[in-house]
């Protein structure tokens, strides 16, 4: 999957109106190339989650422009009719908590996404298993989420974010519950996957352990983004 990754230009988001209005995003400019993992860092209340929600098409920005791959999805208004399908086919989500569906085994947790897109069950499960191989949870493919460790659950959640091979993955604090070794392992996986599937990945984080791994970092303060070169430290 190629294309231009993610481009955000002059994005603004205002919650509410009148006296109680909050300008959560004032001027956001970002650019993430396919195959790249960038960090998004900022103090609490600076607008990180708001930005992910706009990009994830679950809330509507107030103004600006967002481009996903070759398509303008937002230009002072949505340019895509079916936001649900947009989320399903073109955006992968990885959350701070894995949020797996407790009544499905982990294969079906992941295979559910291609199934929702109309792909036959067997093929959907094959896709899930391929990812499990890469993420080293293959041996637990039949387990229920509650039978996995936190780190294993997080890897399954990453597989779920990747399974429809979206051009974009949005990760909100994906390493928060993990120790430093596991946190680095998750970042390594995200980097591998970004390269393998040409995915543009944005990782929101507070996590001191992983910040040095990014080559490029966006800082956000009071709804305004600033770009910065990261250390891009090797974590092998």
């Amino acid at each position, binding site marked *: 999957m190629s294309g231009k990754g993610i481009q955000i230009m002059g994005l603004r988001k205002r919650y509410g109106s009148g006296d109680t209005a909050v300008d959560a995003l004032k001027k956001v400019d970002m650019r993430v190339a396919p195959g790249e993992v960038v960090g998004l860092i900022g103090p609490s209340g600076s607008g990180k*989650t708001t930005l*992910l*929600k706009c990009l*994830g098409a*679950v*809330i509507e920005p107030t103004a600006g422009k967002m481009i996903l791959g070759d398509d303008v999805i937002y230009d002072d208004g949505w340019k895509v009719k079916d936001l*649900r*399908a*947009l*989320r*399903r*086919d073109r955006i992968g*989500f990885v*959350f*701070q*908590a894995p*949020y797996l*569906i*407790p*009544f*499905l085994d982990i294969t*079906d947790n992941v295979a*559910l*996404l291609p*199934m*929702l*897109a109309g792909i036959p*069950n067997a093929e959907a499960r094959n896709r899930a298993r391929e990812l499990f191989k890469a993420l080293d949870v293959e041996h637990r493919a039949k387990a*229920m989420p509650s039978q996995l460790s936190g780190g294993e659950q997080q890897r399954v959640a990453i597989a*779920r974010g990747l399974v429809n091979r979206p051009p974009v993955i949005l990760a*909100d604090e994906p390493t928060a519950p993990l120790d430093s070794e596991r946190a680095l392992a998750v970042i390594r996986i995200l980097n591998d996957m970004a390269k393998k599937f040409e995915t543009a990945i944005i990782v929101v984080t507070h996590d001191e352990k992983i910040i040095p791994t990014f080559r490029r970092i966006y800082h956000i303060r009071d709804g305004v983004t600033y770009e910065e070169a990261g250390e891009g430290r090797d974590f092998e």
Partner: protein
Amino acid sequence: MISLAGRDILHSWGKFVFTGMGLGLLIGITLSMAGIYRGMVDDAKVLLDNSGADLWVVQKDTLGPYAEPSSIYDDIWRGIRGMPGVYQAANITYLTMQVSKEGGDVRVMVAGITPGGPGTPGWPPYLVAGRQITRSHYEAVADIASGLKLGERIRLRRHHYTVVGLTRRMVSSNGDPMVFIPLKDAQEEQFLKDNDAIRAQRRRTAENPAFNRPGVPGLLDAIIASQSTNPYVNAVLVRVKKGHDPEQVAEFIRRWKRLTVYTRSQMEEILVGKLIATAAKQIFMFLVILSLVSSAIVAFIIYTLTLGKIREIAVLKLIGTKNRTIIGLIMQQSIALGLIGFVVGKISATLLMAPIFPKYVLLEPLDSAIGFIAVVMICILSSIVAIRAALRVDPAEAIGG
């Protein structure tokens, strides 16, 4: 695509089975309630069927003999027998009493039947054991539900009777088992007082100078004899000749005798429409209340189950699940709960409840079918609250803060 509802049920089957069982007992009671009503209607119908009559001739302007007291002279039947279209006419007397037997007493309806043998209106049409009454006194045929046994001796007021035969499903409109005895005996039991009362009455008659005149020997004896016989019965049962319209025959009797005559359908209307109408309304109210309680329970359970899945629903929405799929998930679970409840309810009504209810419980397949449809409808309606809650869930919630 996989069935999300099915997977969720399999995953938490314990919760579903237990709530389904609770709901099932409620549904079982509801089905039994309907069965009790059907049983009451059936009791009324078998009473009419078993009497073998086409027409009931009763005291003028009464709803007798079952719904109101009726009293007519015991020689009226002769006049009726000679009327056109009448095949058979027979006196009948009913009295409800408590009969003591081994291990407690039982409430029965005693029917006094005229001599004449099986086939005479009022006689039990068939026996399951023993024989019909052959002597003219002190023999009885009892319904098996009374718990009486062949050869058992029972006391009805002043006399002892031997049970010589047993019937099945011969019950009054109240569902009390019937006991058949000869008409003459029944008239006596209905009329006769205890010994003290008789003695007191004789003394009073003898003390009355109008009845005890020295110049008229035999007058006092004749008066006492007339006071201690009962020339009344409750009704005359009439069987119509083949090819005659019962309504026409009834009309003829009405015109010539100062009596009220009911056909089979009128009698059924009296029993079902009047005698058990209040009981039926009561049962209907119970059905309504039980349905409301069941809906409330289903709605509450499904709502709670859905609230427990809010996060999963938010995730499902975020990853692009259609609203239709989420509605399906909740509604299918609701219907599944209803199905478990209905199966448990039907089984418990049939195997547990019907046998232990003292009244006859008639579980009609049609009622079960209606009950089934009602359960499914209730479950669909009850899931609406939960569905509204699920549809309000914002996919942004899955991302967090």
